[in-house]
């Protein structure tokens, strides 16, 4: 039996410490807001899962219903909605994003762990873990 899409999205959010729902992919963002959000995460050298919401309009519908947030992109850290592009960019500029993600911006780049957080688990929604 198929897991309802909303449950799959909730599971993806729970299973990935940092997950970005976006238009397009980190390599090929299809929207300026998504592109800016990816750039902020990449500038902090953090590992994040990315979900392209474009292939199926139901992903966006179910995601927004779940998060009570109408726009894309949406960044979740440790299961909590951080915000969209505006909030992520504000927090990037103030240093709050680095703090939230545990990035030491004064020291050498944080070494990402070798093991994918979702390793061995299901890969719902074509989620890929990306290392910038």
């Amino acid at each position, binding site marked *: 039996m198929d897991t309802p899409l909303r449950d799959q999205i909730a599971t993806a959010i729970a299973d990935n410490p940092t997950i970005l729902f976006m238009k397009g992919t980190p390599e090929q963002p299809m929207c300026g*807001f998504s592109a800016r959000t990816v750039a902020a995460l990449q500038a902090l050298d953090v590992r994040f899962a990315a979900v392209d919401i474009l292939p199926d309009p139901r992903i*966006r519908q179910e995601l*927004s219903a779940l998060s*009570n*947030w*109408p*726009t*894309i992109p949406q960044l979740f850290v440790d299961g909590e*909605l*951080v*915000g*969209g*592009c*505006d*909030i992520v960019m*504000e*927090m990037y500029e103030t240093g709050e994003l680095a703090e939230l993600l545990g990035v030491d911006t004064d020291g050498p780049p944080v070494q990402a762990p070798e093991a994918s957080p979702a390793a061995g688990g299901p890969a719902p929604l074509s989620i890929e873990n990306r290392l910038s």
Partner: protein
Amino acid sequence: MPTTDELKLRIEAALPGARADVVDLNGTGDHFQATVISDRFDGLGRIDRHRLVYDIFGAEIGGPIHALSLKTLTPADAA
């Protein structure tokens, strides 16, 4: 097609005492940026501030209003 004036008036009507400045980012009537100053934002985090504004437009966000970029400030933030 929504206009910057319409968005401004609707935000200011929904959040009494608020001041909203709305810009049409591309001149195409669907990508907007709003700077909203309201004492309703006092004590709220960014997520809740943005939700207060998004909720004014409901399903229009993502529909006729393709994008609404927000800056949400309290009068103290803006001072």
